[in-house]
């Protein structure tokens, strides 16, 4: 290119003759960093347009600046918007949400496993001797629990060979005969267990009568197309696993399992060994009814998270049946938070109370054993031992028992409907309808009518009495308290 030497010569000549003033380093730096005022920037630009060395300096400064910026770019890229969401707080929230979803699934899916009524009816028809099956299942499970070391190899072998047994009718019949032979023993044991069961357990036993419906999907799991989901729950369940395996062997009328059911049998059989191996040796002493109760979710799911979630849910359920008089319940309400009743105490306060041993010193609720931890439970026990007077409200009457099994009317005045009594030694408080409250200091020999106040309405539903501090609650949610042994009363809002 012919013009290049001319240009180079012109540039070198211009540089050699350059004796002008140049912008200082500060100004060039500010120009490069674009922090110069507009007027001054124009001046610098005008100079640069005619000064090749300064253009060179600017260019070099920008080149190194660009390289440094490039080095900066080589650093980790800025976190994307989605990755910013993965903060510890978001992770905690996500974990909580996931646990909530798991809890819902754990609590809801067992209900889904229950077949519809129509389906249950159909299956009941199919398995006419359903009770026998269930009994056989119970028996099998009971045997498994009572003789774990012995049964374990047998169960393991039979479970592992379940797919083969499904196709082996003679083996199945032999197994069924053995099971039926043991059925009589099982029924006898079951009847014996029902006699000793408390009411709630009996109720559960009643539920067990409908167990075929609940067990049906498990029993016929290998016969249904949608068995996979059912087997999922049965996979880690001790009872379901044994029922599943036994059903294949004990139900004569059951159709032959489909070839595809081999997988499900294998799944349940595969889980039998660890399931039965986990059964403690003392489970034989447990009532048989346990087998008929729904398996707790944490037993069906063996993961730690499921256990935690279901344990929390289980504790929430059990809260409603927490003993009314729990440790510190009364003393907390009377001392920790005056005027506050334990809700459990209100609902479950026994109508029959024993007079708590009266302390010599009075005036302090905290020093009273009756208001200490486990007060009523221990006082009840002591009262029975010392044959103390028992107080009870029955049929709207206030009765007491100084001699065991002999009750007498403690307040033979007609026209009063008693609803609550609180006895502490000879100090007895009893209340009833229309905020009627009486007090006896001598074990019921004499009574005085206590007037709460003109505004007192409703039926007295609870009385907490100490030597001086007394609190009375009515059905109208009025809370009356006295700090002078019942002489003066003040109503507090609850």
């Amino acid at each position, binding site marked *: 290119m012919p013009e290049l030497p001319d240009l180079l010569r012109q540039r070198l000549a211009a540089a050699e003759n350059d004796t*002008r003033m140049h912008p200082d380093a500060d100004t060039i730096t*500010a120009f490069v960093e674009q922090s110069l005022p507009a007027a001054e920037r124009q001046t610098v*630009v005008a100079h640069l*347009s*005619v000064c090749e060395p300064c253009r060179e300096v600017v260019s*070099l400064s920008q080149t190194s600046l660009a390289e440094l910026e490039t080095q900066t770019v080589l650093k980790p890229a800025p976190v994307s918007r989605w990755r910013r969401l993965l903060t510890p707080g978001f992770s905690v929230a996500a974990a909580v949400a996931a646990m909530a979803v798991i809890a819902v699934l754990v609590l809801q899916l067992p209900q889904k496993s229950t077949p519809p009524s129509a389906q249950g009816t159909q299956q009941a028809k199919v398995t006419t001797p359903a009770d026998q099956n269930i009994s056989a299942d119970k028996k099998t499970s009971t045997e498994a629990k009572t003789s774990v070391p012995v049964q374990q190899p047998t169960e393991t072998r039979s479970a592992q060979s379940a797919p083969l047994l499904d196709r082996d009718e003679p083996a199945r019949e032999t197994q069924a005969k053995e099971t039926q032979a043991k059925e009589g023993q099982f029924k006898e044991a079951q009847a014996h267990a029902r006699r000793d069961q408390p009411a709630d357990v009996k109720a559960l036993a009643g539920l067990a009568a409908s167990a075929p419906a609940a067990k049906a999907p498990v029993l016929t799991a290998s016969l249904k197309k949608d068995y996979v989901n059912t087997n999922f729950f049965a996979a880690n369940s001790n009872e379901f696993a044994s029922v599943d395996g036994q059903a294949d062997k004990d139900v004569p009328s059951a159709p032959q399992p489909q070839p595809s059911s081999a997988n499900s049998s294998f799944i349940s059989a595969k889980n039998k060994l660890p399931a039965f191996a986990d059964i403690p040796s003392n489970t034989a002493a447990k009532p048989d009814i346990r087998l008929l109760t729904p398996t707790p979710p944490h037993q069906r799911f063996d993961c730690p998270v499921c256990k935690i979630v279901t344990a929390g849910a289980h504790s929430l359920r059990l809260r409603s049946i927490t003993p009314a008089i729990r440790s510190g319940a009364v003393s907390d309400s009377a001392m920790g938070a005056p005027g506050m009743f334990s809700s459990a105490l209100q609902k479950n306060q026994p109508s029959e109370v024993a007079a708590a041993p009266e302390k010599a010193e009075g005036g302090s609720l905290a020093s009273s054993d009756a208001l200490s931890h486990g007060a009523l439970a221990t006082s009840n026990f002591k009262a029975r031992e010392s044959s103390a007077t028992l107080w009870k409200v029955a049929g709207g009457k206030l009765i007491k028992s100084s001699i065991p099994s002999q009750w007498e009317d403690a307040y033979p005045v007609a026209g009063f409907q008693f609803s609550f009594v609180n006895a502490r030694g000879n100090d007895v408080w009893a209340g009833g309808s229309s905020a009627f409250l009486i007090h006896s200091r001598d074990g019921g020999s004499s009574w005085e009518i206590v007037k709460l106040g003109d505004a007192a309405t409703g039926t007295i539903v609870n009385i907490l009495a100490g030597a001086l501090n007394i609190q009375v609650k009515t059905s109208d949610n009025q809370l009356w308290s006295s700090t002078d042994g019942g002489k003066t009363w003040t109503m507090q809002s609850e």
Partner: protein
Amino acid sequence: MSSGPRPAEGTVLSLLVLFEKSGGERYGLTLQTFEVVLEQVAVKYVPEATPRQKLEFWRDLKLEELALARACAAGHEAAWQAFLTRFREKLYDIARGITKEDSSARDLADSLYADLYGTSEREGRRVSRLNFYMGRGSLEGWLRTVLAQEFVNRYRKTKRLVSLEEQTEDGVQFSAAPAGPTSPLDSRLGAALDEALGQLTGEDRLVLASYYLDNRTLTEIGRMVGVHESTISRRLEKMLKALRKQVMAGLVSRGMNRGQAEEALEADVRYLQVDVTRKLQENRPAAFQQDKGSD
């Protein structure tokens, strides 16, 4: 020591605020020393500014780095520790970016480091180059610019000292004979070109000179001006078209017909480029009163 007038009473409080903002106290500077530094900066860049304008100007300075540089120049140990921690490695990186070669980069950086520390003495005191930092740009940018200036000076010195043998090795002897002073074929063409170039803005002249004289890329020019390279490309095209039109108009106004004007313009493009240099050299600004050598 202060060369400028003392700040008004109303600005004393603001000076105190600026001093606290600079953090000069932790480097051993005093408020009086810092005030003197600020006055020096104001005298150099805004000598006729009012106290209020000075205050606004000072607020835009890189006060923290200014205090650090001046504390280093004064020889405070804590300041040097902070300076070395922050800029020692950067100095070598910048030099490497300029020279594109490690040994010369280290040589360049060490040379500057010696100047920054102050190897020369004046009246028994070390003279540090950091005393010339005024805080208008960042200290890192200032170091970059100083290194670039030093590199250009070295390059030009070495170019001047190139031996004839080296020039022979570079093939200078085989190059075409230098052309004489470029003269347009017609004096009217030169006058028309000068007139058209004189109407360009400073930035347009900078773009034109950078592209045609320095052979810089569009990216480099765009970075220098602060616009995208595509903008530079379009601007160059527009500029050449406009120059052509203006030169044509100038030639026509000087008695040429359109055919002659086009023939004169198509003679050689280099005339335009040479005239750019010559014309721009004539329009040198006198805005900068301090020579780079005194920096």
